[in-house]
C-alpha cells in the first residue's frame, strides 16, 4: 500500500522537482565556461535561462518538500534530513545571487562573479544531493520496515 506517512523522505514529487535545479545549475556552469571562453552572448543568455528555470524548480521543490513533511506529520524529519534542508537553502541563496548577477549586461554578467557563483552553486547542489541522498536512502531503508 502507498503510505506516504511511513516513507516520508521518499518525496516522489520533491525528488522529481529537485532533479531540475541539479541539472540546470550544472548546465549553467557549462554555458558560463563557454561564455568565458568565447565572449559570445549566446552562452550568457543560455546561462540566464538555465539559472532562472533552476531557481523556479528549486523553489517549487522546496515547497513540495515542506508539504511532504507536513503531510507526513513527522516534523522531526526536517532534522533527520538536515543536509538536504541546509544544502538546499544554501543552493537557492547562491542561485538567487547568481540569477541577479546574470541580469547584468554583457561580460560582467558572468565574469568573474557569475562564474564563481555558478561553480559554488553546483558544488553545494552536488554535495547536498550526494550526502542528502544517501542519508535519505538509509532513512527510507529503516522507514519502510513495518
Amino acid at each position, binding site marked *: 500500500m502507498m503510505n506516504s506517512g511511513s516513507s516520508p523522505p521518499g518525496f516522489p514529487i520533491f525528488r522529481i522537482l529537485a532533479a531540475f535545479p541539479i541539472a540546470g545549475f550544472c548546465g549553467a556552469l557549462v554555458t558560463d565556461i563557454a561564455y568565458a571562453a568565447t*565572449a*559570445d*552572448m*549566446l552562452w*550568457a*543568455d543560455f546561462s*540566464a*535561462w538555465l539559472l*532562472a528555470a533552476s*531557481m523556479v524548480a528549486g*523553489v517549487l521543490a522546496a515547497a513540495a518538500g515542506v508539504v511532504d513533511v507536513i503531510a507526513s506529520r513527522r516534523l522531526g524529519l526536517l532534522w533527520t534530513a538536515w543536509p538536504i534542508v541546509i544544502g538546499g537553502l544554501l543552493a537557492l*541563496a547562491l542561485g*538567487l*545571487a547568481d*540569477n*541577479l*548577477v*546574470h*541580469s*547584468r*549586461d*554583457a*561580460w*560582467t*554578467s558572468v*565574469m568573474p562573479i557569475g562564474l564563481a557563483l555558478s561553480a559554488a552553486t553546483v558544488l553545494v547542489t552536488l554535495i547536498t544531493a550526494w550526502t542528502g541522498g544517501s542519508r535519505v536512502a538509509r532513512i527510507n531503508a529503516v522507514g519502510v520496515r513495518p
Partner: protein
Amino acid sequence: MRHAMLKLGCGVALASAAVLALTGAASETADSFDVRTQIGPNPVLPPLQQYLLPPMHLAPVIGWKPGETPKVPAGLRIQALATGLEHPRSVYTLPNGDILVVESRGPGIEPVTRPKSVIMNWMESLVTSGGSNTGSNRITLLRDTHGDGKPDVRTVFIDHLASPFGVALVGNDLYVADTDAILHFPYTTGQTSITVPGDVLTPLPGGPIDHHWTKSLVASADGSKLYVGVGSNSNITENGIGAEYERAAIWEVDRATGAHRIFASGLRNPNGLSWEPQSHALWTVVNERDELGPDLVPDYMTSVKDGGFYGWPYSYYGQHLDPRVQPQRPDLVAKALVPDYALSSHVAPLGLVFDTAGGLPAHYAGGAFVGEHGSWDRQVLNGYKVVFVPFSGGKPNGMAEDVVTGFLDDKGQAHGRPVGLALDKTGALLIADDVGNAVWRVTSAAPGQAADAR
C-alpha cells in the same frame, strides 16, 4: 521616500536581506550626490558600481488635466499648442510657419533573449503613455493662421510611417527619418497633407532588435548632406557587438545619391542634431550607458567632429573603461574624445535646439535648450525638464538653468515627459511631450517682444 513610489527589482522576485541592504546603500549614495557637479565640461565621475539589484525608480504617468501646464520662470509664458496627440516625439517648423508634430511609437520588436528582457519590457510599459490606440506613427500638421498660438488647422500630414522621428526640409524635398529608412516626399509650400508614398533615400539600421530606434535628422546649410543619428542596439553590447554594425554613430548621407559614411561614432544614442549658430558646428545630445550606478555615466551634449570617436561601448568620457565590454579595443579607446558638456546622469536628453530666432528674452539668445526625458535607473529622479545651457563663442559658457519644469508632481508622478524641441516661426520654443500627449509653446511673457521678432 514616503510617497507612493514604484520601486522595481530586476531579476527573480525574491530578495534576501543582503540584497535589500545593497539597494538601500545605493539609494543613500544617490541622495547625497550633488548632480550639479556633473553639469558642465568637467563632470565628477564617481567609481563605477555594479549591482545585484540596480537602483531603479520609475515615475508613474498620470497625464495632464485640462488647464494644467508645465512651469516656466518669470519672463516666459507657456501654453499648450496642441493636446490629445498620440505619443508626440518631435516637432519641426516649416518655412511658412506650419508645425509638424511627429507622433511615434517604438517598433516593439526587441526579442526576449533572456529573463531580464521580460522584466525590462514590462517596466517600459509602465512609463510610456500606454493604451492600445494605433493612431500614431504619423505626422500631424498644425497651422496657426491668426498667430495667436492656437492652431486653427490640424490635419494628418503623413500617415502610416514606421516609428518616425527626424524631419528635414531642403527646398521642396521633405525627408522623414523612419526608424529603418530616410524617406523622401515632394512638398510644396502650404500643403496640409501628403498622400503619395515616400521613396527610400537610404535604408537605416532598424530591426532586428532596434533597441534605440529614434533617428534624428538635420540637413547641412547648403542642403547637400543629411546627418542622421543612429543609436546603439543595446545598453552595452549585451546583444553582441555584431548587432552594433554602423550604429551608435552619426551618419552623413549624400542627398543626391543616398550614399552614406560614418561621420562620427562611439555615440551611444545621439539625438537632437543641430547646428551651433556661431561656430556652425554640428551638435548633438547623447544618452550614455546605464547600470554603472546612479551617477554614471553622465549624459552629455557635444560638438561632433568629423571622424571623431566618443568611446561607446569600450569607454566613457575619454579613457574610462567599461568592464562589461569584451573583447576590449585599446586602439579605439586611445583616441576616444571627451564630450564638451555633461548634463548629469540618466537625464535622457532627446531634444536640442539653439535659440537663433530672437523670439525669446535676450538672456537665451544663442544658447541651447535641451529636452530631458527623465531617468529610470537611479533612486532620485533626474531630468524631466527642459534646461538652458548658455553659449558664447560657439561653446557652452556656464551652468545649465531649468527653463521648463513641472513635468513631475510633488509625489514623483509624471504629468508628461519632454522629448524633441524646435522653434516656431516667431521664435517661440516648442516642446513635444510624449506621455503628456501634448506640444507646449513657450513665449516671452512680454507680448510686444515676441511680436517685434516676427
